[in-house]
């Protein structure tokens, strides 16, 4: 491998100027400065990342990569490492370049020990060809955004490419058959797994199991380095190496707690023997989910949970992670590009768990697709209102004394968060 030279100071200066200009114009957009730099120096990204003493770690998969990336970053920072990380954005490499421009010195030095990057499957091949990560964590492959990828198997192939281009070690989800199978095509890389104890698997049905595909039996599963063995309310029990540990957590929901197991396994692989166990558990306890993913707000004295749903498995997990009892439920479904245009996925989610209490409000562009879905599952609906802000006002007014939960697709969540800002303080989302 040829040694990459640091980018020239002139490139950095131009990039930083472009970034400053974009900011002054009020844009949060990262594409422009990233584009400028890529034009001037196509190897900019690889060159800056190559100087990091502990290299590059990537996290990918359909569900949970934002929260898992955030947890990995917090766990590593808890070990005293300086971590460079990216926020997910529309154009991956340009987004990373733009975040870099904010942090590198004029001579091209990035003050970090390691980079932890959230990598969208769509950008995987382009990225790993430019930068070989030292470590990768592959979470799952589920039906999502089929508009863009076509089929689950081709998404799995994109993740396999990440693993094949990873130099040191790969952490795989033992319970996802397509992810676990990636191990078969790997050569010299270390492979480790995170997994679920048998009795917890019912909480995490896969797309295949929904239609009755039998799961692998216990004996054929590889050993997991980190195993989730117990779930509580904001509490998890993990078997880490040989040791069983129960700990309180800031994240909630079965799904995020399983992501914590993934983050632990990755950090253990990256740090090896040097990991400080007590600091690790302390960081784990404090790690919080990424904005919008299972976010809890207080509105007029009552809790309100926003649960992002973007595919059938995520929706099923959202429904099974939180009890519907005593909660007023709203569902908001949009079909904008970022949500995915296809509504077929709603038919791969069962809504029986909402049958007893019914649904208080259905909203979003695809209000009536959702209403039909609930009707065919014999779930009653109190109100329908496609316009999100109006629906939210009515929903809040109709249930002043009850905790509330809103299941929403991505763009519906953005709109609802913005309107919630008129009721309560909502952190900026970028």
């Amino acid at each position, binding site marked *: 491998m040829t040694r990459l030279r640091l980018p020239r100071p002139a490139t950095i200066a131009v990039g930083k100027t472009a970034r400053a200009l974009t900011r002054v114009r009020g844009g949060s957009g990262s594409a422009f400065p990233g584009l400028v730099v890529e034009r001037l120096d196509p190897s900019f990204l690889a060159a800056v990342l190559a100087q990091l003493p502990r290299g590059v770690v990537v996290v990918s998969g359909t569900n949970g990569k934002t929260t898992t990336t955030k947890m990995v970053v917090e766990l590593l920072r808890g070990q005293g490492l300086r971590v460079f990380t990216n926020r997910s954005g529309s154009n991956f490499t340009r987004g990373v370049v733009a975040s870099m421009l904010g942090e590198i010195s004029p001579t091209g030095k990035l003050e970090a020990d390691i980079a932890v990057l959230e990598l969208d499957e769509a950008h995987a091949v382009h990225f790993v060809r430019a930068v070989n990560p030292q470590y990768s964590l592959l979470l799952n492959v589920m*039906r999502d955004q*089929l*508009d863009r990828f*076509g*089929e*689950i*198997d081709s998404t799995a192939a994109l993740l396999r490419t990440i693993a094949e281009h990873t130099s040191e070690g790969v952490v795989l989800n033992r319970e996802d058959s397509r992810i676990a199978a990636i191990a078969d095509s790997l050569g010299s890389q270390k492979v480790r797994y995170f997994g679920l104890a048998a009795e917890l698997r019912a909480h995490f049905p896969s*797309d295949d199991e929904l*239609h*009755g*595909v039998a799961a692998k039996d216990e004996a054929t599963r590889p050993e997991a380095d980190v195993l989730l063995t117990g779930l509580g309310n904001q509490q998890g029990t993990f078997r880490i190496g040989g040791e069983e540990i129960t700990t309180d957590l800031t994240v909630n929901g079965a799904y995020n707690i399983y992501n914590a197991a993934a983050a632990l396994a990755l950090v253990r692989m990256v740090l090896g023997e040097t990991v400080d166990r007590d600091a690790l558990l302390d960081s784990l306890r404090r790690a919080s989910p990424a904005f919008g993913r299972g976010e809890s707000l207080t509105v007029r004295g009552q809790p309100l949970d926003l649960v992002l749903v973007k595919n059938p498995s995520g929706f099923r997990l959202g429904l099974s992670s939180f009890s519907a009892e005593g909660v007023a439920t709203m569902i908001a479904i949009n*079909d904008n590009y970022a949500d995915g*245009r*296809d*509504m*077929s*996925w*709603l*038919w*791969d989610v069962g809504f029986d768990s909402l049958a007893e209490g*019914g649904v208080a409000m259905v909203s979003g*562009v*695809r*209000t*009536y*697709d959702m*209403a*039909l*879905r*609930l*009707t*065919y*599952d*014999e*779930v*009653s*609906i*109190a*109100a*329908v209102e*496609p316009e999100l802000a109006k629906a939210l006002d009515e929903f809040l007014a109709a249930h002043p004394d009850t905790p509330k939960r809103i299941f929403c697709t991505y763009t519906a969540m953005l709109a609802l968060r913005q309107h919630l800002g008129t009721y309560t303080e909502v952190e900026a989302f970028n």
Partner: protein
Amino acid sequence: MTQHAPADKQIRVLQLYPRDMNIYGDYGNALVLMRRIQWHGFTPVMLSYNPGDEFPEAPDILIGGGGQDSGQDRIQQDLLGLGDRLRSLAEEHTPMLMVCGLYQLFGHFFETRDGSRISGIGVLDVETYGTDNRLIGNVVSESADFGRIIGYENHSGQTYLGPTATALAEVVVGEGNNQRDSHEGARFRNVLGSYLHGALLPKNPAIADFLIGTAVERKFGEGLGPLKAPQSSPETLQRLTELAREAASARPR
């Protein structure tokens, strides 16, 4: 299920290969048939057939969906073994709905990009060619038999009708069978093939009631009465369906 019809008024719905050929919400078609059979005053019975199973006796309606390439590979040999039985059910006017992957395999063959041919069972006079082009997006089509049909397509195989096949519908928005002509789906007797997911039946109850009505007519010699769906929302089921169809037809591709 909330109401009970006499057991002798059973309508038996057979899902073909639900394990391997059931993605993109095609389960919705099965669910809609079950509920509407019940709301028409009959007793729905759901049957399923997966590779190697014994073929269930006397199915009244057959449905099948789309799958991954890997799923298609797993069922293909088994399906050929059912060919005679399915062809004679089709000849006897049994109502069927085959979506996407099974629509393709109900035709003569699927020719892959490298020229190798996967045989189908030839119930429908259609042939399919694999392409590098995935046709994806909302579809609005017009059918002489069923009115406006609305759905969502997602396929890279492109299908062409032979001389004895008729199209299910003509595309208004979207691609349908292929990028060259405007046909969507195919029909032979009461066998319907279509590329449309969505799922198809929730937003196109005319097709659901055609399948049910045909089954009821064949089995009991009577016509379908009005649908008695319980009203569980501010709007009736019929109104919800109209509103869902309006919203879907107004969306970008």
